[in-house]
């Protein structure tokens, strides 16, 4: 059994908020540079250049890459031999979000209630928190702030087994084409296959925040990821939707066992500011 204090968690989350929002992850940076070499569209190359310049300014001035610093999505893998002391875990995470967003000059984009008042909570809480209990005595926190431009373009289709591969392809391509410039391409496309309704969506989100250079460990799904990326990049959408071959930087697929009658497909699209930062306590 290992003790981790609530205040340690709060401090880590606060630090991750600023890091994730103001520092473009290395994998995305490298992908921008590569795309700038390969993109045939002049305006597309120009936009990729602006995004690299933007990342430099943001890091130097500790300013958000994008003003939409999102809802704070937190993935926590908690070792089953961890004992959290001095407060409850959820409140510790939310205290970290509060501190990170207020002290870090990040935009507060969370409203307390969706339909009637839509009053801003003024501190970007609550986090959207996904917890898994895992082996060991470590605590892994991954923070992925997600803006609404891309989040609003997410899609869930409850396909049936007969829809098969063709149905999956069409769902992904439909989602990407409907998103177009609104989702701030070049995008990262997360696809969740299988499970049930809510699990497919969570798989898509997890796929979205995977490292850009990672591939699904199952070679059949790794091939599917490559094939979908190829198709997405033939839509012509390009950087910012102004045309080109760099519509997506990656398509990631995550899957889970599903019902004999179901083939759920969820597509979660991330903008190019595919922010994520991680701490292991």
């Amino acid at each position, binding site marked *: 059994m290992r003790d981790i204090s609530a205040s340690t968690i709060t401090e880590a989350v606060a630090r991750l908020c600023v890091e994730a929002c103001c520092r473009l992850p290395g994998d995305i940076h490298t992908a921008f540079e590569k795309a700038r070499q390969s993109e045939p569209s002049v305006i597309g190359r120009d936009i990729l250049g602006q995004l690299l310049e933007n990342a430099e300014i943001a890091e130097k001035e500790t300013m958000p890459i994008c003003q939409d610093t999102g809802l704070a999505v937190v993935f926590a893998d908690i070792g089953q031999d961890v004992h959290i002391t001095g407060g409850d875990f959820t409140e510790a995470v939310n205290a970290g979000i509060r501190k990170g967003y207020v002290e870090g000059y990040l935009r507060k984009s969370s409203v307390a209630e969706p339909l009637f008042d839509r009053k801003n909570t003024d501190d970007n809480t609550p986090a959207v928190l996904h917890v898994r209990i895992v082996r060991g005595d470590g605590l892994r926190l991954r923070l992925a702030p997600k803006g609404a431009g891309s989040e609003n373009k997410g899609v869930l289709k409850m396909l049936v087994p007969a829809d098969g591969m063709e149905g999956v392809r069409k769902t992904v391509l439909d989602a990407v084409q409907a998103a177009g410039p609104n989702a701030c391409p070049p995008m990262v496309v997360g696809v969740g296959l299988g499970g049930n309704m809510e699990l497919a969506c969570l798989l898509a989100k997890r796929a979205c925040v995977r490292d850009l250079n990672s591939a699904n460990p199952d070679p059949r799904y790794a091939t599917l990821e490559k094939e979908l990326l190829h198709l997405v990049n033939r839509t012509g959408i390009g950087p910012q*939707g*102004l045309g080109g071959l760099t519509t997506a930087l990656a398509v990631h697929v995550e899957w889970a066992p599903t019902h004999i009658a179901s083939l759920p497909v969820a597509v979660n699209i991330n903008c190019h500011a595919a922010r994520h930062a991680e701490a292991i306590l």
Partner: protein
Amino acid sequence: MSDAIVKHIRAPFDEATARSLRAGDSVRISGTILAARDAAHKRLVECLDRGKALPVDLHGQVVYYVGPSPARPGQPIGAAGPTTAGRMDAYTPRLLAEGLRGMIGKGYRKPEVVEAMKKYGVPYLAAVGGAGALIARRIRKYTVLAWPELGPEALAAMEVEDFPAIVVIDCVGNNQYEAGQTPYKTLQEAV
């Protein structure tokens, strides 16, 4: 920034400036623009519905769809990239009828908005989405004009210098998203 030929223009726009812009033009805007997004648009249209005066005369104004992040001490503004324009579509024709002369955002517009743009001679421009820190450097001053309680959604005026944008839909309805994407579209199994 690109070395391509760019048009340097002043805001607010006069009618000739608005009509001279063509889809695909790269522009740098200097002068004063308005900042407003969902909540401010809703309130502007509510003012019109109730026959109340708007907090600002819209004639000639260029609106930038933005909700900036907070400014650090000593800086005029935080990150300030464009937000999705389509969310303002429901309100836009009303505001164009009130004299609004230009819009800056990102993403697609509805056909009825494009029709209103053609009717009133109003272009729609895109700034690079997600380039919030870069764009902030072109904003000299940010002044809230109304509804400060809306925080990043307040109605504001921005003094800008060489603010970078691309004309996406011009006053005659040419669309640069379509024109730009077509040459690179090789996906035949159209969805």
